[in-house]
């Protein structure tokens, strides 16, 4: 088994599997959502579902920054990039995301200048080197990434750079979790909280999930054992009838988050009244826009943005996958018309997307470890 070969302490994984199985109440089904796409990746890569009893199901959440960008925003970005003298900068993950008329790569073939950058800060060097061009950074990502955009804007302001702006598409995780909790489609028992988002926002923002919705949350690290341990911690809470926020990843995630990062976001950005998410639709206060104080760096004010809503292709069921209602392989086009090479939907584009993770690592035949078999008297 892959997991045993690759992971150095398979013994611990088997021990955790046995402890999780021992906590299952007969006849009860447990649905746990891992919010973060990085966790989804680990789960499939290491076949962690084989370590869980039949009654424990993992549901993949919306925490994949590229996956949640609606098609209309990709079209808007390409429109911006097509304006005279514009150089757009973007993370590599975004380059292959299909808009209604193609991806950034396709747009470049038609003449736009969209450059891949590692960091938003790289955009500043491009702006300095091209004073006669207008450099627009395509900002995407959750709270993990928003501070980097914020710090880049602050740096640009300090330098007095006038040819740098941001097309802000940053989203916030908590309203998306709330939308899922309020959705009638899905009944969840608990959440594996995102790791790196939580290094920025801390664990407090999840407290409403425990107090108002009565569901436990455990913030988790990215190693296979981290995730198994988090599932165990969730199962302990459920077996004791508790719902609290716990931090399995405390070696990296401070309970109160990173104050300097939150301050930088707050200085440069504010919540939008609403934002459209792929699959989840419009969610109130779920995304960030550039603050008026930094209007000179707001691409949405500097340029005309069409803002046209574009429906996903009919065949694409990314929406259901992002909400956890469908498993990747239940989508009609999974692995046939939609593959990582020719993606139709975003979940197949990003390595954190549930479809890509399952396509690359998943197996139809489950081979549960003996410890995960629940024996009933």
């Amino acid at each position: 088994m892959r997991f045993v070969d690759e992971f150095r302490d398979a013994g611990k994984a088997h021990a955790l599997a046995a402890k999780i199985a021992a906590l299952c109440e007969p006849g009860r089904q447990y649905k746990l959502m891992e919010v973060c796409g990085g966790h989804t990746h680990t789960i499939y890569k290491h076949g962690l579902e084989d370590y869980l009893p039949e009654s424990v199901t993992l549901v993949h959440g919306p925490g994949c920054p590229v996956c949640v960008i609606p098609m209309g925003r990709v079209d808007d970005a390409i429109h911006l990039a097509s304006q005279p003298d514009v150089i757009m900068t973007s993370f590599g993950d975004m380059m292959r995301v299909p808009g209604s008329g193609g991806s950034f790569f396709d747009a470049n073939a038609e003449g736009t200048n969209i450059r891949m950058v590692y960091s938003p800060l790289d955009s500043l060097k491009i702006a300095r080197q091209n004073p006669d061009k207008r450099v627009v950074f395509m900002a995407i990502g959750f709270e993990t990434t928003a501070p980097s955009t914020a710090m880049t804007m602050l740096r640009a302001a300090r330098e007095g750079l006038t040819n740098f702006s941001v097309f802000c598409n940053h989203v916030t995780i908590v309203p998306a979790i709330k939308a899922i909790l309020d959705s009638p489609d899905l009944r969840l028992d608990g959440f594996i909280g995102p790791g790196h988002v939580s290094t920025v926002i801390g664990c407090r923002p999840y407290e409403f999930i425990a107090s108002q919705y009565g569901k436990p949350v455990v913030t988790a690290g990215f190693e296979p054992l981290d995730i198994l341990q988090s599932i165990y911690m969730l199962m302990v809470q459920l077996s004791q009838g508790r719902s609290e926020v716990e931090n399995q990843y405390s070696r990296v995630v401070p309970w109160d988050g990173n104050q300097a990062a939150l301050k930088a976001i707050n200085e440069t950005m504010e919540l939008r009244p609403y934002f459209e998410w792929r699959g989840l639709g419009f969610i109130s206060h779920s995304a960030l826009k550039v603050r008026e104080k930094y209007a000179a760096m707001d691409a949405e004010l500097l340029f005309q943005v069409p803002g046209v809503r574009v429906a996903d292709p009919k065949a694409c069921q990314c929406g259901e996958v992002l909400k956890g209602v469908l498993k990747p392989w239940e989508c009609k086009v999974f692995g046939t018309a939609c593959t990582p090479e020719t993606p139709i939907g975003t979940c197949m584009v990003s390595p954190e997307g549930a479809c890509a993770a399952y396509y690359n690592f998943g197996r139809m035949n489950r081979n549960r470890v003996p410890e995960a078999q629940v024996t009933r008297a």
Partner: protein
Amino acid sequence: MCLGIPGEVIELHPEQPDLAKVDVSGVRRMINIGLLVDDPPVPGEWVLIHVGFALSKIDEREAAAAMEFLEGIGQAYEDEIAALRASLIE
């Protein structure tokens, strides 16, 4: 996207207190450490890096574990290192 890669701080920028040179799997590049202003890292310490910014300090054991995990995920990690290599932060 939310990938965080561990790097060892090699030296602080002599003029810009926001910047530090880090070593990630042998690739040495400048990153921004401005988000750790409340507890700035010093050379020899490890940080978790996301899109050119240090997000948090980590201990060496955590760094080794994260590295092992990242090397295991293959292409996504290689893409990240390739992107870091091409980075222009100054």
